[in-house]
């Protein structure tokens, strides 16, 4: 059967790709290190392909995990906050810090905003709904980089939102781009703006399957509007909330385009940007990039582990 071979291929091509990355990272690491040894003294070691041991060095150097610097910071810092501020000076931890902050701030806001929009749209008049959904989809469907640019131009101190903010706080010199904190906030606002439609569409679809009789029963029992939402609607949507949270965790963890679009690298770097920066540019530090890639993959798998375990259990339960 020709189809069978297609199946085999279609499953295995992506699998191999994953394996390839992981495997290649070993050789990448060793190559870099070998060349350093070559400069130092011997060609003997260069001929030996022992990438594994020296390969780890790149993980531990200043650009990545920076074990020795972390240790130094830990032992020399008096308080935790001082330790963290020192940690923030190391590029990898800075990227990690922003990525995690972004992920864990954006995700809950997206869920709440999406739910509110879905509830509002659901009670709109049916004729306007189509229009609202159409415009709501735009921020989600549009290319992330382009969406980021569009917003970036608006929050420019000469753009409309930038001027509005200046007027609000009555400080004509305020620029959102200049300070780290404000830049983080605008990136997070972008993240929410970009992802809220996704949550909205999912929740909206969930609201269509809302059991009417339960709501009516709740009303007969004297539940107020808010209570009905709290005790009937939200539990009904709970599986969807988990789904959206999962997808959003994954999506926000790989935040990348807005940083390029907002030109925000000086203030906020995400892990993806960190890798991109290594790959691009003049030097093309492949080994460094792949070391961070492996670290990212480990990070993602830690993030996803609970979900994977749950899916596995579900699956075993089904069969």
């Amino acid at each position, binding site marked *: 059967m020709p189809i069978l071979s297609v199946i085999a291929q279609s499953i295995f091509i992506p699998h191999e790709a994953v394996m390839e*990355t992981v495997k290649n990272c070993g050789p990448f690491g060793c190559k870099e290190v070998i060349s350093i040894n070559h400069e130092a003294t011997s060609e003997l070691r260069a001929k030996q392909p022992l990438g594994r041991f020296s390969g780890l060095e790149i993980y531990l150097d200043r650009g990545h995990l920076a074990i020795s610097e972390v240790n130094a910071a830990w032992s020399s810092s008096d308080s935790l906050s001082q330790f963290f501020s020192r940690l923030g000076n190391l590029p990898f931890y800075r990227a990690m810090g922003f990525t995690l902050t972004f992920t864990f701030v954006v995700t809950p806001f997206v869920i709440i905003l999406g739910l509110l929009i879905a509830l509002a749209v659901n009670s709109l008049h049916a004729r306007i709904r189509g229009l609202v959904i159409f415009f709501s989809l735009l921020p989600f469907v549009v*290319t992330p980089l382009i969406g980021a640019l569009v917003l970036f131009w608006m929050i420019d101190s000469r753009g409309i939102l930038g001027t509005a903010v200046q007027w609000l706080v009555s400080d004509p010199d305020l620029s959102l781009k200049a300070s780290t904190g404000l830049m983080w906030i605008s990136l997070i606002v972008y993240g929410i703006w970009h992802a809220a439609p996704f949550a909205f*569409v999912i929740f909206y679809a969930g609201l269509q399957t809302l059991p009417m009789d339960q709501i009516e029963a709740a009303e007969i029992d004297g539940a107020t509007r808010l209570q009905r939402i709290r005790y009937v609607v939200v539990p009904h949507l709970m599986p969807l909330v988990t789904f959206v949270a999962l997808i959003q965790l994954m999506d926000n963890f790989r935040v990348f385009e807005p940083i390029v679009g907002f030109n925000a690298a000086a203030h906020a770097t995400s892990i993806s940007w960190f890798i991109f920066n290594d790959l691009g540019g003049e030097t093309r530090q492949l080994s460094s990039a792949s070391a961070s890639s492996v670290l990212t993959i480990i990070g993602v798998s830690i993030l996803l582990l609970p979900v994977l375990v749950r899916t596995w259990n579900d699956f075993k339960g089904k069969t």
Partner: protein
Amino acid sequence: MSSRARKQPLGLQILIYGFAGLWLIMAAFPFLWTAWGSFKVELDFFSIADWTYALTGERTKAEYGSPFTDAGYKGAWVQESFYRNVINTFIICFFVVCTSLTIGTLGGYALSRSNYRYTFILLITALIFRAMPPITLVAGYMLPFFQWNVWGLMPTTIIVLVAINQPFTLWMLHSFFQNIPKELDESAKVDGCTQFQAFRHVIIPVMWPGVITTGLFSFLLAYNDFAVTAMLLSEENRTMVPQVAAFLGTTYTEGNIMFAVASVVSATAPLFILVMFFQRQIVSGLTQGAVKG
């Protein structure tokens, strides 16, 4: 719909309409603003003197005699030959969609008809690929591509995009084909069709809704991708999105940021049309995953 539970007091209704209106403005206003501003000169779009200039186009009038100008578009499309990037984008999108749909329909159909349960493997692969930043995969591809001297070519990028996209496509089509009853092709086989004939004459006519939805999503992925295309394409093969990023690098110094604004608007226009026509499919595609997962 007129059940008592759905009746709302006036105050609440106003609140709801107000909120929905606010969201509508939030969602649509940036695009309208940028589209409007792309016909202005830079001093209007980023107006220091008065923000209303961006609406009325005072400077544009002073410079070109009318409140609208196509200078930005001309600069981007003619001077910087943005059309090449547009063509590249559509070539890449076309081939990515075709390839992944071909593999996806055949593979998804076969998977859904086989007795062994591939669902879990598929789901996990799709999930892993969804979770991983594409840039981490690109890091792994770079070195072999340099060695084989295939870096910067469009077919390479197409293959990478398809590989990243494929598990997701397969999973989506797989769950779609499972909704097509097995009896359909079984009865075709009873009538004397071979397996392939059953697929060709019975399944293909009914599979289009699912294929279109999946195709839309792989199109969006290829169209919106920045990390892979920016890294793997040489300058003359660039697609639109990396080109816009490149505009920022080169034109910011020239003070001609309007090229970038114009090209951003041009790149958004196809998406706008896409959403207009395929809104239903996009929504159903998004929700399909949620209901199944």
